[in-house]
């Protein structure tokens, strides 16, 4: 009785191995469907005028167009999109007017109860008016003082109360945020709630289905005005766990995954056969803000002491060179006009080199030779937590004790907007210098007490004039100089210490060809267009 049992037990593994796989893993992207896994548990909204997270922006980027677009793979270059050409401004009745001629043959995607139809100026006007409506758009503030009308079915005219440079106007009508064009008929049919989960635009991919907490499926738009996409479709999978995404890529179940800004992870994955890792911009800028209304941070010498106590190289080492790079101004010079480079700030002695002796002297001069204590909260996300922990360790060397409490990401955002932190590290990308400076440093944006509370954690109010002057400046060179002047003032007062920018990290199967070089993408993902293909 015992021998047969023992025999079976011994032979079982050998039998299993001999029989081979129960079933091999399915090849990802069967029939040209690219599977992209994003770091998220679910979508929040696919209404492009509310989409703010990277996963949501990646979907709307594939479904919608703008009047103009950022060149795929290079966000520093504008190209025509739904419009036939990049417009130039003219003055009419004392106002600045930008006129767009629409391409012919652009078709709005069909959706429930609404068949596909040709895009006209009526759709563009509807969309831009929706983008400027604070009840129908999170980006309405960007469209204040703008009116849109349509002289005919193929022409759109945008009139500005206050003139803008092309550098500030183009992003408002580009394929990003409020500039993404929503087709009128499906939008009205679906309503606000329907649009959240059933986007309908003119892009290379059309919405097919959404399974909550799992995936959004897009199919190729055969009538796309730039040509039928080379992919049959795209499946965006919601997978919040990095290990799961990595295993899915390595197993062939996924084609592209959102990685993590960590050099060790990147180096590990580079050694895997048939897997490529892409590190590209735009870089999200990590900046440390000092709440200037709180003693002792209300003293400039204290803030400067803390700045000298910090070492950008030490912050950099947490992430890895190449994945992150140091920045010397709140606006990243690498990606946007108006930023300050290292040499520019060094020339003015505003780079605040790491110098513990100087830091301690400044603290002593301020009457704090023993240092002081602070309490802050941080997000549990590694990108934030490691920066706060490094800040804690670095400031301890000059006697400044920072107690760090870890909370979940949404809680951190909620608390810092209630002014909970005297020191705030914030990681963000904004499409131009005006938005960076307005949201983070204009007095209107002061958290809680500002006229339009936003993310001015420093409670700073000394560059309002410079920001407004830059915004009104139509000469690009003068505009850029005004932005630089504003940031020099920020650094002189040391209300914010720019730490680094963190690049985007994605990994893909070697079979994926995006169809463009990857330099910088505003939607914070590699960009999937009609030229993207799977080479199997």
């Amino acid at each position, binding site marked *: 009785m015992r021998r047969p049992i023992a025999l079976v037990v011994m032979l079982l593994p050998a039998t299993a191995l001999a029989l081979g796989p129960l079933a091999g893993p399915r090849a990802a992207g069967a029939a040209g469907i690219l599977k992209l896994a994003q770091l998220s548990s679910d979508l*929040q909204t696919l209404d492009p005028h509310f989409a703010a997270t990277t996963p949501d922006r990646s979907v709307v980027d594939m479904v919608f167009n703008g009047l103009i677009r950022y060149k795929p793979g290079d966000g520093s270059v504008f190209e025509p999109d739904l419009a036939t050409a990049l417009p130039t401004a003219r003055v009419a009745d004392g106002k600045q007017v930008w006129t767009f001629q629409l391409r012919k043959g652009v078709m709005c995607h069909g959706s429930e109860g609404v068949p596909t139809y040709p895009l006209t100026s009526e759709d563009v006007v509807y969309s831009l008016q929706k983008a400027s409506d604070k009840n129908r758009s999170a980006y309405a503030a960007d469209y204040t003082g703008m009116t849109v009308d349509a002289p005919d079915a193929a022409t759109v005219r945008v009139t500005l109360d206050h003139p803008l440079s092309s550098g500030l106007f183009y992003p408002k009508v580009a394929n990003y945020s409020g500039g993404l064009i929503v087709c009128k008929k499906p939008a009205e049919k679906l309503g606000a709630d329907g649009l959240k989960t059933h986007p309908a635009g003119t892009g290379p991919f059309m919405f097919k289905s959404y399974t909550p907490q799992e995936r959004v499926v897009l199919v190729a738009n055969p009538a796309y005005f730039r040509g039928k996409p080379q992919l049959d479709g795209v499946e965006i999978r919601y997978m919040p766990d990095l290990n799961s995404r990595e295993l899915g890529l390595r197993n062939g179940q996924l084609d592209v995954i959102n990685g993590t800004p960590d050099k060790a992870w990147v180096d590990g994955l580079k050694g895997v056969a048939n897997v490529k890792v892409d590190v590209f911009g735009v870089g999200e800028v990590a900046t440390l803000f000092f709440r200037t209304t709180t003693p002792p941070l209300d003293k400039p010498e204290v803030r400067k002491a803390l700045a000298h106590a910090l070492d950008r190289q030490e912050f950099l080492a947490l992430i890895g060179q190449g994945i992150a790079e140091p920045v010397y101004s709140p606006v990243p010079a690498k990606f946007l006009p108006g930023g300050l480079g290292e040499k520019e700030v060094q020339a003015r002695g505003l780079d605040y080199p790491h110098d513990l002796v100087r830091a301690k002297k400044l603290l002593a001069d301020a009457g704090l030779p023993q240092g002081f204590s602070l309490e802050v909260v941080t997000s549990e996300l590694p990108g934030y937590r490691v920066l706060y922990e490094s800040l804690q360790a670095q400031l301890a060397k000059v006697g400044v004790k920072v107690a760090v409490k870890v909370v*979940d990401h*949404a809680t951190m955002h909620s608390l810092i907007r209630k002014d909970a932190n005297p020191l705030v590290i914030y990681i963000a990308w904004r499409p131009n210098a005006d938005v960076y400076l307005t949201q983070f440093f204009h007095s209107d944006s002061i958290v809680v007490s500002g006229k339009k509370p936003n993310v001015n954690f420093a409670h700073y109010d000394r560059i309002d004039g410079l920001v407004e002057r830059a915004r009104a400046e139509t000469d690009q060179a003068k505009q850029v100089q005004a932005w630089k002047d504003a940031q020099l003032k920020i650094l002189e007062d040391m209300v914010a210490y720019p730490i680094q920018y963190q690049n985007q990290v994605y990994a893909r199967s070697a079979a994926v060809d995006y169809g463009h070089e990857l330099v910088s993408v505003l939607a914070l993902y590699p960009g999937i267009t009609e030229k993207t293909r799977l080479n199997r």
Partner: protein
Amino acid sequence: MLRYVASRILLAVPVFLGVATIVFLVVRVIPGDPAVAALGDYASKEAVEALRQRMGLDEPLLVQYTRFLAGLARGDLGRSMITGASVREQIAHALPYTLELTLGAVLVGALLGIPVGVYTAIRRNRLADYLGRVFSLAGLSVPAFYLGILLTLLVALRLGWLPAVGGGDAADAGDRLRHLVLPALTLGLVMTASVARLTRSAMLGVLRQDYVRTARAKGLAEGAVRLRHALGSALIPIVSITGLWAVSLIGDSVTVEVVFARPGLGKMMVGAILQRDYTALQSVMVVYTAFVVGINLVTDLAYAWVDPRVSRG
């Protein structure tokens, strides 16, 4: 027996209501605003306020609670605060995946654990027994998520036998089964260790009983003695622990669903917490509560069936 069944069912109702109330209150204590979570940090204050009104978050707590209970009574679990999708439909989609994972894990735990426990009891103090006890200890000590990753690295990546992530094609039973194997093994192996240990102890206790000696003395084959006479009695505590484990596995399924990126209630709950989706979160927790209460009820009834002395009080 009928009286016993009725009393267990009646007791379940206040338990369910009490937990549902606690869930309702707890989700509203979590910091963070669902409207801000839904619209992002770019949204205007007006847009956030407008959404809060549409979500009903500006209403008094008592009004929200009354609406919540009334919805529960009607079977209306509301709509997601973030996407507007029907929560009942989301749960209907996710629930089968969680059920099949839990059932699969229970089957793994029972079908592996009981034979291992019986065999180690029979081979007491021999090599098989020592190996079995080491395996049990290891199984209880290793965290489920770690075990899951190890299994995936070996079986999915190295051997390429099974998929690493996902729940499979909803319409393809074979594909769902392939996607179920690793997660069910991960979740079930921990239970296996516990069941094996308990079965071994129970069997050892029963094998020493007089009636077992009597059965041998009557000339019955050893197999019949062990399986028909001993195992039946040893099953009583195993039934109890299987029920407890089923409840525990439902909770542990959260980790496994996230690690394997499987759809399910656990993944839905984690997502709802991160997005501050009150409606989805409280509905998922109510469903979990219903499961726990239901499984405990079934366990009590099964226990009474296996041991009729229980229902006679």
